[in-house]
Structure formats: structure tokens, C-alpha cells
């Protein structure tokens, strides 16, 4: 059995990659994908711990996180389309009419 530390390390790497993606990319859809990566790194951790503890609650958590992520993406893509219709761009540097 692979020790749980390996999973923790892998999920930390995934989480960092996701966070870096959010901070460096300018395209809204790529940012969204990076956020998904962060959520999935948490999912990996939940499953790994659930196996280590031999408890189910972590696995159940993962199901809910996946469902919520799907809902969030649905709303997110709808909003991205709405932004594209009003501004003709989804580059977040150009979506900046609100300032002050």
C-alpha cells in the first residue's frame, strides 16, 4: 500500500500548480481549469485520508465536491458567455470597467 505521505505530497504539488495557474494566466477559462485542479487536489487528499482511516466520510465528501464543482462551472461558463457578449473578450486584464 502506498503510504499516505505520498498522496499528501502529490496533492500539494497539484494545489500549487493550480494556484500558480490562477495567478499567472489571463484567460478566464484557463483560470477556471486551474481552480478545478485545486479542487481536485483536495479531492485526492480526501480519498487518500479516507483510505488511511478506513472511514467513508472522506469519500462521500469527494462526491459532493465534484457535484458542487460541476454546478460552479455551469454558472461560471454562463457568466463568461455573458461577459463575452458585453465586452468581446474574456481576458481578465481587459475586464476592468469597475475601478475606483
Amino acid at each position, binding site marked *: 500500500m502506498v503510504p*499516505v505521505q505520498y498522496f*499528501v505530497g502529490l*496533492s500539494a504539488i497539484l*494545489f500549487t500548480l*493550480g494556484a500558480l495557474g*490562477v495567478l499567472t494566466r489571463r484567460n*478566464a477559462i484557463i*483560470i*477556471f481549469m486551474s*481552480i478545478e485542479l*485545486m*479542487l481536485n*487536489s*483536495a*479531492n485526492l*487528499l*480526501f480519498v487518500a*485520508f479516507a483510505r488511511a*482511516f478506513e*472511514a467513508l*466520510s*472522506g469519500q*462521500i*465528501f469527494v462526491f*459532493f*465536491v465534484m457535484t*458542487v464543482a460541476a*454546478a*460552479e462551472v455551469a*454558472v*461560471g461558463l*454562463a*457568466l*463568461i458567455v*455573458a*461577459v463575452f*457578449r*458585453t*465586452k468581446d473578450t474574456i481576458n*481578465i486584464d481587459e*475586464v*476592468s*470597467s*469597475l*475601478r*475606483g
Partner: protein
Amino acid sequence: MQANTLAILPEISLAVLAALLILIDLRLKPERKALLPGITAAGLLAVLALTLAFARPGAAPESIWGGMLRHDTAAFVFRLIFLFGAAVTCLFTIGWKQVERRGEFFVLLVLSTLGMTLMAAAGDLIMLFLAIETASIPLYVMAGFMTADEKSTESGFKYLLFGALTSSVMVYGFSLLYGFAGTTDLYALAAAVASGDLPPLGLLGALVLVLAGFGFKVAVVPFHFWAPDVYEGAPTPVTAFLSTASKSAGFAVVVRFLLAVFPAAVLPQIIGVAALMSVLSMTLGNSAALAQRNIKRLLAYSSIAHAGYILMGVAAASLLGAASVVYYLAVYLVTNLAAFGVVIIYFNVVGSDEIKDYAGLSRRHPGLAFALLVALLSLAGVPPLGGFFAKILVFAAAVEAGLIWLAVAGVLNAILGLYYYLMVLKVVYLDRGPDEDKPLPVRRAHMAALVVCLLLVLALGTVLGPMYDWSNLAAGGLF
């Protein structure tokens, strides 16, 4: 079993209300759709009455539904706060053209309220996560609801990006907490933390990740960047809802998490973190508000500052601290709703949110100007209004906990805050505007909502007893 069902009566009736609204929206003739906000408000007030009548918790807090929810006074009082805020928000949407005839908007509002009531009662990490997302996702859509409006879509988009990012950080924190304690039940987690067997540094790291998610909901520094932009771009009724009910829901979770699950006795660093966030929020919110020309942005920065005052009660980490948070949130909700009510009414007639366009309001409609006066003075903390007593309570909690420097910073900030509220009132009362003799029609529903809010502001500052008792009971129910 039956007691369990009665305890979630507010949630059940909110779900039924949402379903009914979809049906009503389908059956209603197009020319009568303007009734929707009124119907929703009536429904929410009915849920409020049902909650008061049947869903009162017993003297001792209980865990129900397999530990998923807590049935205690804290959850009960917060539910009342959210339901009242949602009902008043509905009344203020009357006359907001892009929104008032759209049934789905009110369904989203009710579902978001449902998420908030669950946030206040959540007793398990899974429930907490689901509740936060149930409250947030409809709000993203509501903020971007005016799809033809550049600012509104941008506001919804920014809110969603920040929300999704912070919630993924929060879930990562949850997964670490689960890894440390091996349980998702909040109170089992609290017992594991209290036993002292878990590594304090690891716990603190996980807690900081989790706080990113909560800090986003309540808009405290350093998780506040979204607030001014989103508040400015969203339809103003949504802004009112975001800055009151949504913020209260965030604090309901913060209080339970920081006081019941991570008591300061085990992790004393928490007090430092909360105090630091509090002082930064107050200072940054108040000083940025000084430079604002748009009233919605000004209220956004003021709401960041108020989140700082409220965190002071959290940093006190005591019964008085928790009670002061509940009291402050109740006062803040009615006061801010009144302030946004005036902004909404004025925008419906004049079509501007710029502070300079408020010139001459006192001559055009003295009643509306007086409402703004009362609301802003209460936000500033002037006696005998509710804001004064609420501030006294949080300052007292900070002093009692030995955080005298924090209380001093709070008092200095309150003075700073008074200045920009008075600047707005100067424009309203002293400056002359071009349209002073034109009438300013105010709808009856708006006036009724405004009067109720103002009476409550006054009542919470003078008749302290009932709400103070409830706040104390709520604080006691957390543990």
C-alpha cells in the same frame, strides 16, 4: 424524529417556497409579474413566522440528522436575521426594472437564503461546504443578473472567480483538517483539537486556508478585493443582500468555527490572526472609503470596516465576544438595509449612484433624507441608535479579553468613519441641487420596508433587553 423534522422547518419551507415560486412564475400572466417581489417577501415573512412559532431550539443545544446540523439558539437567531434580510431585499427589488418581473431571480434569492440558514446550523464539514456553496452560487448569478449591462456581468464574473478560488482553498483546508482528525463532524473535530494530540502548527496552517474561504464571505482584509467592484456593479438590491445577509452568514460560520471548534485555549495564535485581520479591515476600509465618489463603493468600503469591528468580537474569544458579534450583525443588517434602501429608491428616480448627485435631497424629500441620516449615523455609531450600543459591546468584549490596543484602534477608526458618513450627509443637507423642486415619488412598499428598518435601528439602540438576551443565548448555544 419529529423534533428533528421540526428543527429544519425553516429549510423545508424555504425549499417549498422556491418550488412554489417557479410554479407561480409559470402561471402568472405577463402583466401581473410585477407581483412577484411582493409574493416572495410575503412567503419569506411566512417562513419567518413559522420559524418563530415552531422551530425554537430547546435549552440545551442538540446535534440532529446524524450530526449534520446543530439545533441551537445561534442557528435560530441567525436564521431570523437572514430571513428578515431576504424579505426586505425582495421589497426593495420592486421597481428595479431588469429584475422585478423575473421569477428565477426570486427563486435564486430564496435558495441562497436556504444555503445561509444551513450555514448557520451546519455541524459537519460536508454540510458546511454544501451550505456555503448553496448560498454562494445563486449569488454569483444574481450579481451578474442584468446580462445586457457591462458592469453587472463583470461584477458577477469577478464575484464568481474570487468565490471559486477561495472556496477551493477552503476545501483544501477542510481536507487537511480531515486528515488530522479523521472526522468531518465539527464537534468531534473540536474534541480532537481540545485533546491536544494534533500538531498545532499543522492545524494552524489548515485553519488559515479555511479562513480564506470564510474571509471571502465576510469580506475582511486580505480577502476583500472583490467587494468594492462587485458591490458597485451588481443590481443594488443584490448589493444590499450581499452586504447584510451574506456577510452575517459568513460570520455565523466564523463564530462557530473559531470559538467552538478551535478554542483560543488550545490555539492562542488564533486571537492574533483575528485581531490583525480586524485592525487591517477597519483601517483599510475606513481610509479607502474617504476617497469614494460613488455611494455604493463607499458603502462597500464601510462594510469592510464593519467586518473589522465585528471581528473584534471574534478576537475576544469569549461569551461576551460572541454575543457582541450576534448583536452587531443584527444592528448592521437593519441599518445597512435602510441605507441601501435609500440608495435604491433614489437610483430608481434619478438614475445615479454618484454622491454629488445627492445634493438637495433634503429639500426634495425630507423623509428620505432623514432615513439616510439615521442609517448613516447608526453606522457611524452615534447614540441613541443601534450602531452605538453594538460598537460599545464589541469594544467592551475586546477590553474584557485584554486587547486594549484593539479597542483603541476601533475607537480611532470609528472617528474616521464618522467623517465620511458626515461628508455624505453634508451633500444631502447643505449642498444645493438643480432638481430640488421636482417631486421624488416613493413607493409604499419601499417606505414600509424603510420605516420598519429604521424603527428596528432605533429599537436596537434603546430597548436593548430582548435582542441582548437572544445574543447571549446564541453565544451560549455555540459550545
